[in-house]
């Protein structure tokens, strides 16, 4: 009997290995059951409200669905309509990319540059400046103050200032003129964009090992730019990657500011973005299938840009 049991094992290696792995897996899961229990509440909610919706959105995007009737499968029709027949969507994509190409990199560099300069200040002033730069991004709906600043009548702060200086003679409709509205929104967006990544950069810089910089100076690093490139940036790579994700996602999701300042829909769709287009079809026209196709395109753009940027940023400093 003993001989048999010994013989049985080596003679079916594949099955043995499979069994081995499976029981091993089960043992691992059982051993770690407390961890699964700890994670369960968060993960259940996370899957229901984040992962499931992404999958659902993808599925719905191939249907015609107006909430009242059952969804009807229509294949790629939503997507072909989106790219071939929807001029407003193309405007929205153009505006969104325009916003993102300007606010994304500018805000990212600004976050880092300001964090870097602030870091050289004495602690008390540093805390104050951090507050000044960070405050706009957490002040909630305070961006409505820009509506007063850029108000189209002569009581608007910018208009009255320019008129007093004699640069313009009559008030400019900053928020109702398609020549200006995009730029105004970009300014406000930049004003609000020194958020989480800015804090991450400040923190990363504060925890930087000073001895590296001193050692580098001995080794012949000549000025602060070399120090930045060879010492500071490489040692902050994790924060830089994190910050990039935050800035890119935010710059592609411009909507609230556009709606608050330029109205919805904005004049001649001048400030229409992918997200406002999504809001239009999702919450006003109830074309859920079509809106889901818009959401899916947005999802792909966001994820694609982020992953690409991660790859590029990993190259910094070698």
């Amino acid at each position, binding site marked *: 009997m003993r001989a048999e049991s010994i013989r049985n094992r080596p003679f079916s290696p594949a099955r043995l290995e499979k069994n081995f792995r499976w029981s091993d897996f089960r043992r691992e899961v059982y051993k770690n059951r407390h961890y699964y229990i700890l*994670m369960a509440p968060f993960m259940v909610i996370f899957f229901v409200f984040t992962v499931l919706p992404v999958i659902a959105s993808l599925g719905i995007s191939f249907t015609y669905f107006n909430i009242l009737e059952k969804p009807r499968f229509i294949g790629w029709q939503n997507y072909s309509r989106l790219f071939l027949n929807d001029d407003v969507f193309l405007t929205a994509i153009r505006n969104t990319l325009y916003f993102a190409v300007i606010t994304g990199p500018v805000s990212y560099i600004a976050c880092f540059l300001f964090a870097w300069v602030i870091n050289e200040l004495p602690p008390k002033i540093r805390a104050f400046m951090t*507050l000044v730069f960070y405050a706009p991004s957490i002040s909630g709906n*305070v961006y409505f*103050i820009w509506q007063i*600043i850029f108000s189209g009548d002569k009581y*608007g702060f910018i208009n009255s200032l320019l008129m007093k200086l004699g640069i313009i003679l009559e008030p400019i409709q900053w928020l109702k003129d398609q020549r200006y509205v995009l730029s105004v929104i970009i300014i406000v967006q930049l004003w609000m964009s020194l958020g989480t990544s800015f*804090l991450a950069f400040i923190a990363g810089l*504060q925890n930087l090992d000073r001895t590296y910089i001193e050692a580098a100076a001995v080794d012949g690093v000549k000025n602060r730019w070399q120090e930045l490139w060879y010492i500071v940036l490489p040692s*902050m790579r994790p924060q830089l990657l994190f910050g990039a994700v935050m800035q890119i996602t935010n710059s592609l999701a411009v909507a609230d500011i556009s709606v608050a300042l330029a109205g919805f829909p904005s004049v001649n769709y001048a400030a229409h973005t992918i997200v406002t287009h999504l809001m239009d079809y999702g919450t006003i026209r109830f074309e859920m299938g079509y*809106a889901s196709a818009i959401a899916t395109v947005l999802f792909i753009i966001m994820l694609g840009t982020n992953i690409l940027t991660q790859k590029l940023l990993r190259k910094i400093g070698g």
Partner: protein
Amino acid sequence: MKKLIHGRQKQLNRSFTVTFLLFLLLALFGVFMALPLIYTINNAFKPLDELFLFPPRFFVQNPTVDNFYDLVYLLGNSWVPFSRYLANTIVIALLGTAGHVILASAAAYPLAKYKFPGSKTLSTIIVLSLMFSPHVTSIPNYMIISKLGWIDTHKAIIIPAWAFPLGLFLMRQFMEQIPSALLEAAKMDGASEYRIFWQIVMPNVKPAWLTLIIMRFPSLWGSDGGSFIYSENLKTLNYALGQITQGGIARAGAGAAIGLVLMIVPITMFIISQSNVIQTMANTGIKD
């Protein structure tokens, strides 16, 4: 002068001109960042005649708290009393934030300190979920919430807020710093995983709690109920305030007061917890 700066900063190779220019740049942008906020504060204390002065003055001349009285009066006369909106907002913000801190920490602890089947996949999914905004999921989210029968309840806002992935991510990065020896020692003494989490891990990550609170509280505080809440007596402060500002020119004073009310809560919270937040943020970052 040059020597002094070099001496104070204990750093080498700094050119005075560049330092000066950089700080000038910082000061200029600091003014750009701060002015709208200062303007908001000043507007809140301006009497009506100053709000409609031409040319408008930046600073208030005869400060008054009339606008706040107007605001309280307007809200007091509304169909649903002001205190109700305030209570709704406080319930949403407190429950949402507290649940988020606890659940995110509980989920972050195993992911930060242990390897087990699925831990890597879950971490990857969390990082990926940082890469798109909640707008993407808004439509299915609405359907799920309506299937659950949560429409027109506070649950629709509170419970999804508990599983905000950025909170889990920050918490996990912070918990990685806890020495494993500490946890091992507790295990040797026979503490259960739950006790270790609650009595050892949680007290050690207080700065990270504050960060999560700072990230979540303001957005819940500023929530206007979105497309989930329809009953007037369940609506939030931000919604009520929005209704007032839409009342037109006569409400400009109350509107300016609102700006200050909405702004002051998150900023005060940040001032109080700044050093803790920075400490947590030092551990953020996506590792290679």
